[in-house]
């Protein structure tokens, strides 16, 4: 069965410090990994999709198939990064279509001033 694990329920860092939100997955086929973010009182929105290989709002994530990980990183945290972050998984190139997305439980990131 496919699974996404986000080991940290809560992560608190100071402004300007590096941030790493951990995500590990298990999937039998070729996976596609995503990071979704939910800012306070806003809807869940896509932050990163691994096949796009983009950097959004200074965040990057690299798929490590050997370690089955897709950790989200940012070198210098900003207060506006405070939000709930969800790692999600689907089959490759499916975008979360017919098989749906499998989400982790989420990590609440708090950036302290």
């Amino acid at each position: 069965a496919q699974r996404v694990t986000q080991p940290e329920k809560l992560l608190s860092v100071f402004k300007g410090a590096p941030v790493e939100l951990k995500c590990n997955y298990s999937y039998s086929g070729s996976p596609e990994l995503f990071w979704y973010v939910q800012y306070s009182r806003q809807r869940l929105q896509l932050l990163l999709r691994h096949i796009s290989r983009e950097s959004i709002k200074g965040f990057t994530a690299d798929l490590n198939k050997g370690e089955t990980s897709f950790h989200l990183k940012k070198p210098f945290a900003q207060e506006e990064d405070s939000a709930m972050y969800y790692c999600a998984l689907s089959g490759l190139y499916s975008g979360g279509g017919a098989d749906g997305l499998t989400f982790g439980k989420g990590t609440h990131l708090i950036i302290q001033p």
Partner: protein
Amino acid sequence: DAGVTQSPTHLIKTRGQHVTLRCSPISGHKSVSWYQQVLGQGPQFIFQYYEKEERGRGNFPDRFSARQFPNYSSELNVNALLLGDSALYLCASSWDNNSPLHFGNGTRLTVT
């Protein structure tokens, strides 16, 4: 920009009742997906509809059903409500079967 809209925003029902939740996708999007998010958990996949046909179903009982209309809007129906059905129900739309999902704000269902 008119994102995915869901109605109602909040709903309180009694055990055993039936509920219908509604979703309007972003204009031009032909795929609609439904997710259930229980407090403290990530969203869990219920259904995906594309071009008015069910294309995917998650691990939910037959009490859960959905449909997509010719204008691509969608309804999620839940029969014989249980206390455990209390959750935030999220609708998401996308251009097609493989594009990233755009989520609505959700409908908060409370079953008493």
